[in-house]
C-alpha cells in the first residue's frame, strides 16, 4: 500500500473514487429491490467503474480495464442466478446482467482502443 515513490505519496491522501463506490451500492440496491431497471444498471455501473478505477489508482491493477472484467464476471453470475435459478426474478437478473455486459464492453473497448498504457483518467 505505502512506500510508492514520488507523486503517489500525494495521491494517497485524496482519491475521488471511494465516494462513488459508496454511492453506487445504495443506488443499485434500491434499483434491484424496487425493480427499477435504470437505477439497477446505473448503480452497478457506478460501483463497478469506480471499483475498477480505484484498483487502478491504488496500484492493485496496471490498467482499469481488467478490473472492469473483474466486476463484470461476478455480476454476470449473479444476474444469471436471478434469472435461471429458483430465485426467479428475471427482470432484475437482466438488469444485473446488462450492467455486467456494459462493464465488460467498456473493458474490451478500453483494452483495444486506449492509446497508451496509462489511460486518460
Amino acid at each position, binding site marked *: 500500500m505505502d512506500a510508492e515513490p514520488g507523486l503517489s*505519496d500525494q495521491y494517497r*491522501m*485524496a482519491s475521488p473514487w471511494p465516494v462513488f463506490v459508496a454511492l453506487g451500492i445504495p443506488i443499485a440496491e434500491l434499483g434491484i429491490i424496487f425493480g427499477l431497471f435504470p*437505477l439497477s444498471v446505473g448503480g452497478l455501473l457506478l460501483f463497478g467503474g469506480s471499483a475498477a478505477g480505484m484498483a487502478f489508482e491504488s496500484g492493485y491493477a496496471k490498467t482499469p480495464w481488467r478490473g472492469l472484467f473483474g466486476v463484470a464476471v461476478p455480476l454476470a453470475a449473479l444476474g444469471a442466478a436471478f434469472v435461471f435459478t429458483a430465485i426467479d426474478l428475471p427482470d432484475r437478473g437482466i438488469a444485473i446482467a446488462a450492467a455486467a455486459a456494459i462493464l465488460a464492453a467498456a473493458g474490451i473497448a478500453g483494452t483495444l482502443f486506449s492509446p497508451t498504457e496509462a489511460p486518460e483518467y
Partner: protein
Amino acid sequence: MEVNGQLALTVLMGLFLVAVAAWLARVENWRSYTPVAGGGAFGQKESYGSEEKPSGVIRWLTTVDHKDIGILYGAYGLTAFAVGGLMVVVMRIELIDPGMSLISNTFYNSLMTSHGITMLFLFGTPIIAAFANYLVPLLIGADDMAFPRINAIAFWLLPPAALLIWAGFFPLPNVIPAQTAWTMYTPLSAGAGAGNQANAGVDLMLLGLHLSGVSATMGSINFIATIFTERGDDVSWANLDIFSWTILTQSGLILFAFPLLGSAMVMLLFDRNFGTTFFAGEGGAILWQHLFWFFGHPEVYILVLPPMGIVSYVIPRFSGRRLFGFKFVVYSTLAIGVLSFGVWAHHMFATGMDPRLRASFMAVSLAIAIPSAVKTFNWITTMWNGRVRLTTPMLFCVGFVSNFIIGGVTGVFLASIPIDLVLHDTYYVVGHFHYIVMGAIAFAGFAGLYYWFPLYTGRMYQKTLGKAHFWLSMIGTNVTFFAMILLGYGGMPRRYATFLPQFATLHQVATVGALLLLIGQIIFVWNFVQSWLEGPEVEDGDPWNLRDSGLYTAEWDWYDKKLETAIADGGETDDAAEPMLTDGGDVDDAADE
C-alpha cells in the same frame, strides 16, 4: 405512464453517470497539476476567500486521510446524535400526558423506531469509528490505515444509509416511516397482517441498515488489518494501548456480527418483496429473533467496548497513575468479546424456549458480568489515592463509571430468568440499557471529544461550559433513567405512546430529566462550535500536563511534532512524511473551520 417514468429515470441516471465521469476526469486532471491535494486551497485561502470553497469541499469528498475521515465520522455521528436526540425530546414531551396529545400514536412509534436505530447505528458506531480512525494509526505508529480507500468507502456509505433510514420522514409520496422498533421483529416487520408496515418506508430503512452494516464491516476489516500489520517498530502486543485493544476486539465482534445482520435483513427484504417465507409463521418469528439477537447482543459490546477503552485510557491521565491492572483490562476485554456471542437469547427468555437452553444462556450471561466488573474495579482502583484532576473529560469518565455501575447491576438482575420474566418488556429494561448507552457510551464519547479536543482542533474548549454540560448530562441522565427503572418496577410496559394515569408522575420526572439533557447538549454544541472557531490556541503538545506524571502518549507526541513543524515554517524537508500528512489534513483544517 409506466414507460415514461422508466424513460425519465433512465435519462436522469444516464445524465448523472455522465456528470460523474466528467467530474472525475476533471478532478484527476486537477490533481495531477496540483502538487498537494488540498494544498492549493490552503495557499490561496487568504486571497480568494470563499471562492476557494469548492476545492475545500472536494478535499473532504476525496480525502483518504485517516484523520480527515475521523473528523467526517465525528461530524456525522454528532449530527445523528442531534437528530436522534431531538426525536426523543418530542417523544418525551408527548409522554408528559397519559393520553395522545402532541403527536399521533403511529408517529410516536415511528420516532421510537428511528430514535433507536439512529442512536445505535448512526451515532454509536460512527462516533466510535471517529475516534478509532483518528487515533489508532497515531497510537500504534502507523502512517495511515491499512486500506485508506476502503476506509473512505466505509464512511461514504453512511450518509446514504442515514437518508434511507430516515426516508419515511421525508415528504415522499406513499412512503411512511417504519414503526417496527429497532428490533424489527417479524411478522410485523415482514409486513404481514392488516398493519401499514408493508410500506416501502420499511424497505428503505432495511436497506439503510444494510448499508450501515456493510460500512461497519469494511471499517472493522480495516482496523484489524491495521492493528495487526501496521504497528510501529516499538509497538508490540505488550505495549499496545488499551484503546487499540478495545478497537481490535470490537472489530472482531463486528466482523462476526454485522454480516449476519446483513444476511438476515436481505432475507427479510426477500420475504417482504419477493414472496419468500423465511420468517413466516411461529418458527419464522423465533428464527428472526435468534438471528437478530445473535447480532444484537454482540452489538451491545461493539458499542460499549471502545468507550470502555476511552475511559480506561483517560482515567489514568487525570489520576496521575498508570491504569491499575492493565492486563486484566486487556484480557477481560477479550473475554467479553468471546462471551458476547454466547448470551444472545437472554433477550428472549420470555419467548417460551426450552428451559434448559434458557438456563445455559443465563449462566453465560452471569459469567460475562465478571469481566465488566473487573474493569469497573480497575477504574476505581486507578483513581483510588491518585492525584485526581477533575477536568471535564475526567468528570465524564467518572460519570461513566457511576452510570455503568447502575446500568450494569440492573443488567445482572435482568440476566436472571425469574426476574427477567417479571421485568421483561417494561421500562426497567429501557432504563437499564439507557444507563449504558446514554450514561456510559455517550459519556465516554464526550470524554473523548473533550480530551482530544486540542488534538483535532488545535484549540481548547471552554472549561465552564464543559462542566455545565457534564453536570446537566449527569443529573439529566440519572433523573430520566432512574425514573424509568422505577416505572418498570411499577409495571409500565415499553414502547407505548399512552399510559395509565398512575404512571404520570414518574413519566413527568423522566421528561424533566430529558429536558435537562437537552439543555446540556445545547451547551455542548455551543461550546464545541464556538471553541473550535474561537477558542484559545493550544501552544504545546501537552495540554494536559501529562509529561509531569510520565503518562504522555503517542498521539500527543504526534501533535507536538506537528506544532513544531508548523511553527518552524521554513519548508524544511527533514521530516518529509509529516508535513505531507499535515498539509493534506490538519493545517488546512485549522484554517478552514
